């Protein structure tokens, strides 16, 4: 019988950039970013499913969610708990604001060192707000661990040997690695299971320290009698991070300029079926970054 694994899933709360409907459009045709829903990054859910599958298979396995973000990102941890995770940590501090992927990976790696060790660190391949696919490999490098990116399925685990199917551009590749290691999971992997009714009841009232500031007396009583309702928060001091490697200071890349893309034509246009007009349409779509 194999001994249970300790798994951490890195998850991010992201604006739902894939579902920019007409309702999230401003009059000038650009996106009102504040109007987008905050969701569990889709590929992080794929990663969570891989973790939960291992938990089903190997008794004694625990799944921890680690998310970095503002106070409201506690929602991501609750969502993970509803679906079957065992616990979660919210990594939150003003000092993290403005972090690029490198500074983010540094903070996450320090948090993992603090709450670990883990046999497996799972993450989504990339987050839909940035699409960079950098955090997984950078966390691996910071922790000096091997990595398997673009994973579609964990096929087998035996002792500390793990076999993973990867999704490449034109095919698939099966690789064998040794734990501990970092795996990033791609969107073509199995979808995450839905919320579990019992878990949802159990963790509905789970809150972070920041969130209980506004709680009632009754709630505090409940909270204090049920330790599992406490979602621990970690700040810069807790993870003993070097502040010069965090936030804007710790980010080698800077945003010089942002241009809003105009996604919507002002009115319906009739295009004649001739080469010139069709070319003009394609040029317009290329120019406004709809295609190309």
């Amino acid at each position, binding site marked *: 019988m194999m001994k249970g694994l300790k798994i951490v899933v890195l998850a991010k709360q992201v604006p739902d950039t894939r579902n920019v409907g007409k*309702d999230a459009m401003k009059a000038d045709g650009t996106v009102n970013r504040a109007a987008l829903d905050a969701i569990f990054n889709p590929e992080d859910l794929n990663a969570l499913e891989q973790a939960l599958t291992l938990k089903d298979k190997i008794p004694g396995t625990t799944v921890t969610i680690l998310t970095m973000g503002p106070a409201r990102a506690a929602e991501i941890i609750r969502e993970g708990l509803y679906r079957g995770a065992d616990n979660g940590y919210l990594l939150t501090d003003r000092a993290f604001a403005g972090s690029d992927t490198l500074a983010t990976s540094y903070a996450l790696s320090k948090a993992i060192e603090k709450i670990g060790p883990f046999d497996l660190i799972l993450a989504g391949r990339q987050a839909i707000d*940035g699409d*960079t696919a950098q955090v997984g490999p950078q966390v691996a490098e910071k922790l000096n661990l091997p990595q398997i990116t673009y994973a579609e399925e964990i096929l087998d685990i035996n002792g500390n040997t793990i076999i993973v199917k990867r999704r490449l551009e034109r*095919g698939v590749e099966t690789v064998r690695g040794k734990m501990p290691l970092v795996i990033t999971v791609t969107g073509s992997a199995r979808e995450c299971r839905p919320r579990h009714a019992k878990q949802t009841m159990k963790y509905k009232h789970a809150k972070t320290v920041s969130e209980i500031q506004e709680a009632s007396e009754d709630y505090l009583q409940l909270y204090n009698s049920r330790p599992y309702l406490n979602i621990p928060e970690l700040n810069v001091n807790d993870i003993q991070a070097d502040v010069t490697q965090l936030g804007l200071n710790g980010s080698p890349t800077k945003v010089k300029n942002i241009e809003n893309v105009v996604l919507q034509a002002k009115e319906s246009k009739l295009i*004649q079926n001739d080469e010139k007009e069709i070319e003009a349409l394609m040029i317009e779509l290329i120019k406004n970054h709809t295609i190309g």
Partner: protein
Amino acid sequence: MNNLFVFCEIEEGQVADVSLELLTKGRSLANQLGCKLEAVAIGYNLSEIGKQIFPYGVDTLHIVDDKRLEHYLTLPYSKILIELFKKEQPQIALLGATVIGRDLGPRVSSALKSGLTADCTSLEIGDHEDKKAGKVYKNLLYQIRPAFGGNIIATIINPDCRPQMATVREGVMKKEVFNPNHLGEVKTIDVSKLIDDNDFVVEIIERHIEKRKINLQAAPIIVAGGYGVGSKENFQWLYELAEVLGGEVGASRAAVDAGFAEHERQIGQTGTTVRPKLYIACGISGQIQHRAGMDQSSIIISINTDPKAPINSIADYTIIGSVTDIIPKMIKAYKKNTK
């Protein structure tokens, strides 16, 4: 020193197109900066590889030729690049935004604490003034990319750390031979002391070609066909348009029922609901059950022979005409105006 480096991906002895595109771009950026263009090739049996790389104007080609490095592996490849970059101090390093480049780039940039911008759609040289620090930076690499699901275009810079690293997808830059007879210097790197067994803890057991599942909801661009497309053969045009634009093919129920497309592609009330950035409805009348699954798309183009088709009333652009006549024109115009 402080040159521009391009990592060349090699698959079965062939340098990947994306790498040749980066060499083309790299050559022109290097000219602008007055520095040299250097390339890195890692793999096995590379004695002839220079023939493919030098015509793109490469001044120095670094070759690592080792049986164990025949296929890409994260740890040894990243170790080699990290060591090389520490020694050569490039000012810019470019990689393809491929599975390999997106596995390797972040690992290298993390070790060098250099920063990396993924999936750039344009690279330019420019200056930057940091008003707060009262500093002017000359000749930085502007790394221009869409972010936020393509809703914004950001220009990213990397003022202080080197190399300035960026990845670019295949097909974004143009590929152009600089001079077919150009020859540069070859430097072979001996890695026998650098890499050891620990770098091979992750090993490839097997590789094969396998088709991806259809994922309409993740597609930023959908080319959807209806009964008006006419046949399964005509649907090929939709696949071709989707391929060049980087999108997926969807279908109406009437098209699925007629056997023009698989059921997984159906969009609408009894199919998938999608909200892509661009929805191109080809020969779809736009009945309410279909619209329910796509009317929240950001931009809708309708191609239809009937000017009064209901779909046109929700379309941002309507092209009146036959699908098989219009799509080839779109493909041609797109190809002509990109790269």
